Every structure is written in structure tokens, then in C-alpha cells.
């Protein structure tokens, strides 16, 4: 009796497992999540451009951090991340290389202050609700640095990014740091609240990328090159005024927003075409280059003890696939 039950269980487990791995056997499997620069892939998926290009690629939708878990476990071949988080994942043992840049945040990330605070300078000695160690913490430090201030000049209150609208509205902090839609919702929840620093003032501080398992590059080099070409098509489809409405329609449907509201999120995202991507892949200091930006993120991560060992930036960047585009 017990033996039969155990056998049944094993069969059930095996079939569940087989269902998972059978689906996962052939195609390239990539993860994406809720950020305008990555939701853009939905256009290529819905329009059938991937198949048209002769690609066998399967995009799976994840919660952002769940996508990192899936990549770290080797269950997907590539994932859409920020360049800083690509380092975090690599430092944790999940080797990955960034092969293309999807976008940079161009205003979607904000430091939002309550009414009465006019600039970052006014935040001296005040409390700021922010998720410590994440990108908007980096944004805040960048802004403070430009004012000749440091983190010691303010008090950070560690808050979940999803909850920052309520945190600001509670009146217990003077500002919050968050990305869209949270930053926009924070301003809605506390009328008069306004951004005092945004990622539009620090373009390239945070690049969003497609990063892949280095072991897949040899076998799938041609596929990745085709995929980057499809991306270029996506960017021009979104940027072309004639097709933009259709593009926004597809993207907003993916996340359950109205197209009008989605237009705002898209405005704060600077999508990167292949031509522009080629320039960003050129090695240089400063935020105009993926190398400089990633070095900056590495310094930040080490300083904030996200991980201990500084990462070798070169090993994380593979410009040849973008460079191979016509």
C-alpha cells in the first residue's frame, strides 16, 4: 500500500518534471519582467517577428527577482536586468554576460520630495525612504554627490519600493526614491509632491540589458545576432509616430494599464537602437559607456556590501554581438 503510494508519487513528480523540461528542451529561453524597456519584447512576440526571423525563442514572464532566481538556477538562458543587478547575480555565482542594451531610465526613476522641499539641498538632515542597495539608492547618491553632499548628510529609511507611495504619504519621511509606476503613484498619493532629482539628469547611470549565460553564446551566436536585429525593429516600431499607438497598445495590455497611462512610463524610458547601442558598448569612463556605468555600479555595490569582491567588468560585457549588426 505504502509502496504503491510512493510509486504514484514518483510518477506524479516525474511527469511534472518532464512537462517542465520537455518544454524547456529546444528553444532559447529568456526571462522578462515589468519594465517598459523589457515589456517592449511583447511587440516582437505578438507580431510573430521572432518566428519570422527564424528564431526559436521562448520568453517567460517573471517577477523581477524571480527571474534572477530562475537564471541563477540555470533554468533560463538569458534575462533582462539592470547592469548593476547583472553584477549582483554574477557575484553570487551565476556567470552572465551582457550582449545588448535595451534602454536606460530617462526620468522613470525619481527622488520625490514632499511639498515644501525645493531641491536635493533641502534634504540635508532629513529622512528619505528608499530601498537600500537598489538602483534608486544609487540614483540618490549620484544626485547628492552633484550637490557636494554624501549619504551621511541624510538619514535613509529602508522601505520597499512598492510601498514608497504610502511611505511618503504617511508624512514620516521627507522624500522617497522609486521608479515608475511607484514614483508617479507617490506624487498622486501626496499632491504637491514633486521630483527633485530624476534619472533624466543622470542618463546612463542605470542601463537595462539582456544578459545571457556565457555557455550559450558559442552554440547560439547566430540566434543572438538575429534577436538583436529583431530588437532594432521593435525600437523603430515604438519610436515611429505612425506605429507608436499600436506599440503602446500591445505593451499596456501586457501589464494591464490603459495606453494613455502607459505612454507616461514609456516617456521616462530611453529605448536604445542598435546604432546607439554600438556607441555605448565602446569602452570609456563615465556613464556614456556601459563599461563606465557598470564600473560605477560595481563600486556602489561593494561600498554598500551588496557583495564583497569587486567584479571584473570586462568579463560581464560582450560587445561583439551588437557590433556584428549591419
Amino acid at each position, binding site marked *: 500500500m505504502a509502496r504503491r503510494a510512493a510509486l504514484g508519487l514518483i510518477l506524479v513528480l516525474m511527469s511534472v*518534471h518532464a512537462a517542465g523540461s520537455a518544454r524547456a528542451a529546444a528553444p532559447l529561453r529568456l526571462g522578462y519582467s515589468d519594465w517598459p524597456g523589457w515589456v517592449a519584447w511583447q511587440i516582437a512576440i505578438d507580431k510573430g517577428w521572432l518566428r519570422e526571423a527564424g528564431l526559436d525563442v521562448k520568453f517567460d514572464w517573471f517577477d523581477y527577482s524571480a527571474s534572477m532566481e530562475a537564471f541563477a538556477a540555470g533554468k533560463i538562458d538569458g534575462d533582462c536586468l539592470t547592469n548593476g543587478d547583472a553584477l549582483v547575480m554574477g557575484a553570487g555565482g551565476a556567470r552572465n554576460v551582457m550582449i545588448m542594451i535595451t534602454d536606460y531610465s530617462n526620468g522613470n526613476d525619481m527622488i520625490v520630495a514632499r511639498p515644501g522641499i525645493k531641491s536635493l539641498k533641502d534634504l540635508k538632515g532629513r529622512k528619505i525612504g528608499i530601498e537600500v542597495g537598489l538602483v534608486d539608492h544609487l540614483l540618490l547618491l549620484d544626485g547628492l554627490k552633484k550637490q557636494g553632499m554624501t549619504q551621511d548628510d541624510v538619514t535613509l529609511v529602508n522601505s520597499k519600493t512598492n510601498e514608497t507611495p504610502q511611505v511618503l504619504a504617511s508624512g514620516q519621511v521627507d522624500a522617497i526614491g522609486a521608479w515608475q509606476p511607484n514614483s508617479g503613484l507617490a506624487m498622486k498619493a501626496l499632491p504637491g509632491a514633486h521630483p527633485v532629482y530624476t534619472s533624466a539628469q543622470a542618463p546612463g547611470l542605470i542601463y537595462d540589458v539582456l544578459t545571457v549565460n556565457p555557455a550559450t553564446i558559442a552554440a547560439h551566436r547566430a540566434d543572438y545576432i538575429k534577436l538583436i536585429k529583431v530588437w532594432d525593429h521593435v525600437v523603430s516600431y515604438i519610436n515611429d509616430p505612425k506605429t507608436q499607438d499600436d506599440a503602446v497598445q500591445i505593451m499596456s495590455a501586457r501589464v494591464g494599464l490603459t495606453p494613455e497611462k502607459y505612454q507616461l512610463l514609456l516617456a521616462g524610458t530611453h529605448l536604445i537602437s542598435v546604432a546607439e547601442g554600438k556607441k555605448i558598448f565602446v569602452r570609456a569612463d563615465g556613464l556614456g559607456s556601459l563599461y563606465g556605468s557598470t564600473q560605477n555600479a560595481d563600486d556602489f555595490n561593494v561600498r554598500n556590501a551588496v557583495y564583497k569582491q569587486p567584479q571584473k567588468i570586462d568579463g560581464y560585457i560582450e560587445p561583439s554581438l551588437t557590433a556584428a549588426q549591419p
Partner: protein
Amino acid sequence: MARSTLFRVLRPLSPRAKFTIGILAFVLPVGVWSLVSYVPAVWHPQIMITDAASVSYLDVGSHMARDAFDSEVADARQEGRAPPKGVRANPIYLPSPGEVLKAFYTSFTTPPETKDGQWLHQSLWHSIRIIFWGYVISSLIGVPLGVLCGAYAALGRVNEPFIEFFRYLPAPAFGALMVAILGIYDGPKIAIIVIGTFFQQVLIIANTTRKVDPALLEAALTLGTRSRQLLTRVVVPAILPDLYRDQRILLGWAWTYLIVAELIGTTSGITWFITQQARYQHFPNVYAAIAMIGIIGLGTDMLLAVLGRRLFPWDRSLAKFA
């Protein structure tokens, strides 16, 4: 008189009283909710703007605290500008029962907007399947193991201290490990339900087994029952009604792990709906989905209770309180 019949220790209610009070159990909380939602004097700490007038930073439909609104109106009046207008409102985190009821309907009738999207009933069905398999797998091992641990003290001693320890570990913390072993689709989600249910199950069922009436065992032994038969012919039948009730409680337990389980791997099921609607602050939809889970859970349990009365007509406690 009415009072003396209602409040008597351990006395069952008359069928009519039982029905009425059962209805009241739902009417009362919904009544409080309606009161808070529809009677502005009760709470309504905010103002929803209906006309921004001369205040540039206000939008129609946005909410602000009442005192801040009052000071804006006072400022505008003093400077001779048109004052903004608004109505008292609750924070958007607390939608009214009417809004939630409407969302309940519309969320089922709204077609999926993407090509590979799912209707809400498909998402719900997916979630139910996750629960079902998690619960079945857990029960296949947990029930026999629980009975054995309860029946044989040595087996109980071998298993229970560790299980007792393990049941405190948070099941969601095993998410990453389960993804590594079982992939990104349904496997790890089912595994989290199993981890969340199994350890409680073994302990609860072992305890139930120990409560078997010793008089039954003595009688069986006197009649010459062998040790093996004692378990299958006496102990198991004796505890069956209680075991059934334990299993009902554990099914509810499995449901509580659904939301964390479905966040692991690819986002799916009702959790996808709830988290996505919450992220963009469509709270009526969120509450509607929460209500759906409650209705499915309560519905299943009531069904199982009726079935239980059919299966175990001799069990008094089921008849009385189920």
C-alpha cells in the same frame, strides 16, 4: 427567553437560528465595511479632487489629505482665486463594496488583452490545479506517515522531533532551491504547497491517531486481533471521521501558501492577477480576487462537510458543528 435558548453551554442551535446567525456572520462585517465606505462622517480622511480650479498641481481624480485641501481652499479664497473643489473620500486602498462587486463581475468578463493572455477563470483554474496537486502529493505521504507515527511510538519518536523542527521553517524560503530542482513552471509551486502542508499534516494526523479510544483496542485484542490487523481494521476505521476533518483543515492550510508559491518561477494563476493589479493600484480588482479565493475555499469546505456527513453518519461532532 430567546437569550436563554441561544446561550447554553454546548447546546446545538435550532436549524432556524443556525441559518440566521450564519447569514449574520457575513452581513455584519459587510455592514461595517459599507458604513465606512458610504457614510462620509465615519472615516473618509481624504478629499478626491473634482475640479482643480486655480491650483496647478492638482489633478481631477487625485486624492489629498483633508487638512491640506482645506488650507489650499483657504489660500485660494484669500488671494481671490477660484478654490478647488472635491468630495470626501476614503484612501484608494479601501474600495467600497459596490466597486468590489462590480470588479468581481468585470474581471471575469474582460477578455485577455494579449495573445497569450488568459481569462480570469483560466488563471483561477490554474491556481486550483496547483493546490490540488500540492495537497494530493502531501497527503499521499503525510497521511500514512502520520497514522504510523501515531500508532507506533518508535516511529513517532524517529520522525516527529525533526518534523516538529522543520515545520517552523518558512516554506517560501525554499523557492530558489525548488526552482533549481524542478524548473520554472508548476513544479516548484506545487513543491512549496507540499512543504507548507506536509509537516503540519504528519503531526496533526499522528495526534489524531493517538486519540483513538483505548477501549476499542482492548476489545479487539481480547477478540484475538493480530497486530497488523489492529492498525488496518481498528485504528484507521476508528479515526476516519477525525482524519477526514483534519484533512479539511489542511486543505485550507494549503490555500494559504498559494500566493507565495505562485510568485516562484514564471508568474501565473490568480497571483499574477492580484500582484499586477496591486502594482498599478487597481484595488477593487485586488479585493475581488481575494474574495474569489475565499469563496472557492469556503465552497469546497462546505461541500466536503456535506460529503463528510454522508460518509460518516455515525459521527456526532460532524453533524452538530459542520
